[in-house]
């Protein structure tokens, strides 16, 4: 029984690993191919099956005038928008979550839980519902097709995630910890940043990770709210897929765009395994 279980376990793990990793390997190998190697026949192994070339990677940094696709600028745009929006979302979201976790709000029939749900409901709603209001809103305030406009929209998208994760986290931090800080001579602000915040680092990391992931992978709003002035990476990558698809540079740009998330995952994974996340506070 247990042997069968072990076998099945490793079988499914292996299967899933291949399922997930194979497309990556495929993209890696394709990014080094040229037109011939992609279109003539199925090729797998560099030097044996095909002669590898860096052309697919080179066009990524060439300006369009010289026949390149130049993803450098969209790349930095994406980093700027994602990081700024994530940072602001985390700061505001954490403060909101702390308030929702510690204080009691009453307004008519509205209670803390209703406010929390209101935040979460922003994510439950299909994004397409928001597209037209956002478009009109940004064009009214003149931020259509600008980085700042995207940051504003992304904060709306990311802050619910931060609030959701941090409310749950703060609810698990005993209230007595804040009270002890107050008794020990901290005013409420000091209690928050001297005691509660340092003990919330695991929660902040998780919330930050989710914000960065959801900000980075968003295509829909980046596509709708920008035209020519500003382009974000996902839009640029998808735009490569035109009538004649340059599979090699498309693969290269896809790899470049997932790279930051893989790096983030590696860093965060280390933190998550170091401090047991939920058991950090008893």
């Amino acid at each position, binding site marked *: 029984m247990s042997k069968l279980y072990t076998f099945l376990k490793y079988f499914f793990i292996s299967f899933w690993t291949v399922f997930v990793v194979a497309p990556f390997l495929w993209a890696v190998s394709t990014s080094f191919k040229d037109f011939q190697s992609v279109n003539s026949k199925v090729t797998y192994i560099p030097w044996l099956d095909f002669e590898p070339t860096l052309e697919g990677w080179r066009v990524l940094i060439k300006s369009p005038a010289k026949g390149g696709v130049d993803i450098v600028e969209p790349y930095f745009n994406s980093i700027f928008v994602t990081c700024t929006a994530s940072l602001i979302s985390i700061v505001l979201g954490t403060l909101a979550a702390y308030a929702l976790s510690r204080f009691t709000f009453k307004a008519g029939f509205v209670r803390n839980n209703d406010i929390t749900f209101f935040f979460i409901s922003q994510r439950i709603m299909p994004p397409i519902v928001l597209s037209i209001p956002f478009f009109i809103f940004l064009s009214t305030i003149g931020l259509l097709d600008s980085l700042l406009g995207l940051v504003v929209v992304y904060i709306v998208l990311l802050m619910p995630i931060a609030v959701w994760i941090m409310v749950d986290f703060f609810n698990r931090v*005993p209230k*007595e*910890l804040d*009270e*002890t*800080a*107050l*008794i*020990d*001579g*901290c*005013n409420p602000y*000091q209690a928050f940043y001297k*005691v509660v915040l*340092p*003990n919330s680092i695991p929660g902040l990391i998780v919330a930050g990770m989710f914000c960065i992931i959801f900000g980075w992978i968003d295509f829909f709003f980046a596509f709708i709210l920008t035209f020519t002035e500003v382009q974000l990476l996902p839009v640029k990558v998808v735009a490569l897929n035109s009538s004649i698809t340059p599979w090699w540079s498309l693969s290269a740009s896809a790899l470049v765009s997932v790279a930051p998330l893989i790096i983030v995952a590696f860093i965060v994974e280390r933190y998550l395994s170091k401090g047991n996340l939920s058991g*950090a*506070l*008893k």
Partner: protein
Amino acid sequence: MNLIGEKISYKPDEQFHLNDVSFNFKKGNLYTILGRTLSGKTTLLKTIAGLLNPDQGSISFEEKDFIKIPVWERNVAMVYQQFINYPHLNVYENITFPLEQRKLSPEQIKKDVDEALKTVGLVGFENRKIQELSGGQQQRVALARSLAKKAKILLLDEPLVNLDYKLREQLREEFKRIFSEGLSQDTILIYSTTDPQEVMELNGEVIVLDEGKVLQKGPAKEIFENPSNLKVAEISNDPPMNVLKGSKNSKNLNFENISLEIPNHFKNLEDRDYNFGIRASEIKLDENGEEFEIELAEISGSETLLHLKRGNSKIIALIEEVMNFKIHEKVKINFNANKFYAFGEDEKLVSSPYGGTNG
């Protein structure tokens, strides 16, 4: 110069958490608040600390209106029943935290912290992480932090309740030592607990609290000997004092078809119906005694608790040896009539074997 509370009420919802509580705590004294869970002990301590504001009533300390002073300026210390320390700081930093908050000089801080560590017996643990400590050690850190502050009001909210039996015994002994040695005559110590034994051992002034109301105040001995009513008798004894509905006539005490000779301290009592009270430890197994049926027998340490039944009366007897009984078995027991309490039908104390309120 005392800590005085007057007519404090706190009613955040339908129920009173504190109902018309008054007290006058003097410096250099130990006060214990005895009450069952949800009796308002924690609420009272939090009100004194300033974490809760009462709906009514006033608190003053050193002639100042305490309610107007925010928590962080009150100079109180509190130890919770959960072991609350700052998880991101090590033992030493945990204890220095309130001192640094008060901006004391580094030399003063070092001196106070070393002293506190010595008092609670945690010298050598300075650089340990809180998570690496056992429950008892964590509670010692919390206590050390409170002691190092040299606060004028020290609040301990059931500090031993979450510890295992052995550790509780040990720490209780140490608490007694710390309270007598480690505290200045300037400090008011307020200790809340559900455990009557702790109250007796700490031997301070007791306030018995139930459903937010003060039932009785007085020295521990007085509460033990002369509980003012049935509720206090129940709360201040573990197991709770047995109550037997019965009556007294000119010759005997009668309850459940049992007649006992009238003890001396009942001689002057009016002949009528009473609630008789008798402690579990004053009931002995006796071949010539009265027959009761065993409902449950639990062995606790070196003692056996017998839950007995006869007619409508259920009582608990504490047998001071480990014995095995079968459920529904009949046993014969004897009551020590000299230790009988008499409570009126209004549940108030009428007569006690220690000479309280004699009718």
